């Protein structure tokens, strides 16, 4: 029965993530359209609609591009290289095992040169997803631990967390751009057109931006997402202690992490230190405390030792 309940939350999480991504995309489309329309209004009031339409198309093209090439770009930002079938064989094997257990296509595998223990996954769809490990993780984790971490990453792909996070990274980038554009145009038009035009746009933008920002923060800080990926990982490996051991090693590990671009830091299994302090992502503590995650996995292990080794519940 335990497994059955977990299964349903599992599916609804996928649906929830797809809905959230759709909602996010919609909000950003409206926002870009409003902003560019607003700027057009300031410049040439009778052509506001052209600006709005242009903004809409611009955002649509951007999203299509991101859906297509975003994951690849993130891999490049991370400075990752293809995993070598000989050298990183264990990682690739474990990845195959977990993909089979999750019933998703086998993702691509990448490695980054980084002495700290970490991993992340990207992908708009499970069929074009990728998992990336640091060399530190491959050297310091044993097979069971590696499997636990791999299962966690595969869970992110299967639950469509990766899709949401890719879009989230893009939206944050867009917001920064829009903000700077607005500040510039607001500054220019403030004297020319009088305060009313700029003030109206400011209110409009606040009205639209505030809810999006709130949603972003809610999404990015959703600790549930990490806990859920841990729980799914336990379901895939049937051995929650593997991931718990890995998290303990990550916490005890003192290797300085390589410089990580802030845009991809929320994707990692444990936040790369340093990335926390800069850029837009400083707002979001994306990961629940490692200690709490370990505690949950350990308690799961205790239950599983009785429940999981039984026959699966017959319906």
């Amino acid at each position, binding site marked *: 029965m335990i497994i059955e309940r977990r299964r349903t939350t599992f599916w609804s999480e996928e649906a929830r993530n797809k809905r959230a991504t759709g909602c996010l995309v919609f909000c950003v489309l409206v926002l870009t359209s409003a902003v560019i329309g607003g700027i057009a209004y300031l410049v040439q009031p009778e052509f506001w609609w052209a600006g709005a339409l242009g903004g809409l198309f611009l955002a649509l093209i951007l999203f299509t591009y991101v859906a297509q090439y975003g994951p690849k770009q993130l891999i490049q930002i991370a400075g990752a290289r293809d995993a070598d079938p000989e050298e990183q064989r264990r990682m690739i094997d474990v990845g195959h095992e977990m993909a089979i257990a*999750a*019933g998703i296509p086998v993702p691509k595998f990448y490695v980054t040169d980084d002495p700290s223990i970490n991993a992340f996954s990207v992908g708009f769809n499970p069929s074009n997803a990728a998992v990336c490990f640091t060399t530190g993780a491959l050297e310091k984790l044993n097979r069971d631990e590696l499997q636990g971490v791999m299962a966690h990453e595969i869970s992110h792909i299967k639950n469509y967390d990766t899709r949401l996070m890719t879009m989230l990274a893009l939206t944050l980038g867009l917001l920064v751009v829009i903000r700077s554009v607005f500040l510039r145009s607001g500054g220019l038009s403030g004297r020319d057109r009088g305060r009313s035009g700029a003030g109206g746009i400011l209110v409009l933008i606040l009205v639209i931006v505030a809810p999006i920002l709130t949603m972003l923060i809610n999404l990015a800080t959703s600790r549930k997402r990490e806990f859920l990926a841990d729980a799914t990982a336990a379901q895939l490996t049937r051995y929650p202690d593997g991931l718990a051991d890995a998290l303990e090693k990550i916490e005890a590990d003192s290797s300085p992490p390589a410089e990580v671009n802030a845009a991809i830091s929320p994707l990692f299994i444990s936040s790369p230190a340093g990335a926390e302090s800069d850029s837009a992502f400083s707002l979001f503590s994306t990961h629940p405390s490692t200690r709490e995650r370990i505690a949950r996995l350990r308690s799961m292990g205790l239950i599983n030792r009785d429940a999981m080794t039984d026959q699966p519940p017959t*319906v």
Partner: protein
Amino acid sequence: MFTGLVIFLVAIALLVFLFVALYNGLVSLRQQAINAWAQIDVQLRRRYDLIPNLVETVKQYMKYEQETLEKVIQARQRAMDAQGMRAQGEAENALTHALGGLFAVAESYPDLKASQNMQNLQEELASTENRISAARQFYNDSVMEYNTKLQQFPQSVVANMFGFKPREMFEIEDPGAREPVKVSFS
């Protein structure tokens, strides 16, 4: 009168739509279970293919263990010949045990342990064992989802009309076999 007719037609259209959606949902769940079953076979075949290789490697070092090797070869043959879900499950278990025995014996051959070829085979086989149990696990998960849907209302109505049958889960008799064999020399 006219509005009544429109409402009636819309209701019918909605019902048909719902019906089709339920039917398609069941079909895709059933297909997922069938695919999951095929995936188990893929992984089992992978193991069959590995074993001759393993036996060749081991033979060079273990001259006095003909019996253990023979057991593995026979278990492989029986597993390949087995018919039916239950018989095959049992034969596969026997093969897993025979392999476990082989690796246990291999412990006492330091040269064999050190050989690169053996180490590769060991990882390959450990991974294959894991893939087999992962595939079985996913099959069971898929079957459970499908069987549950079959019994839930309103899917149960559609299922009865079109003769969707519940599928059998893969069950392992020996509880120890659920754990993949540890083929580690350390």
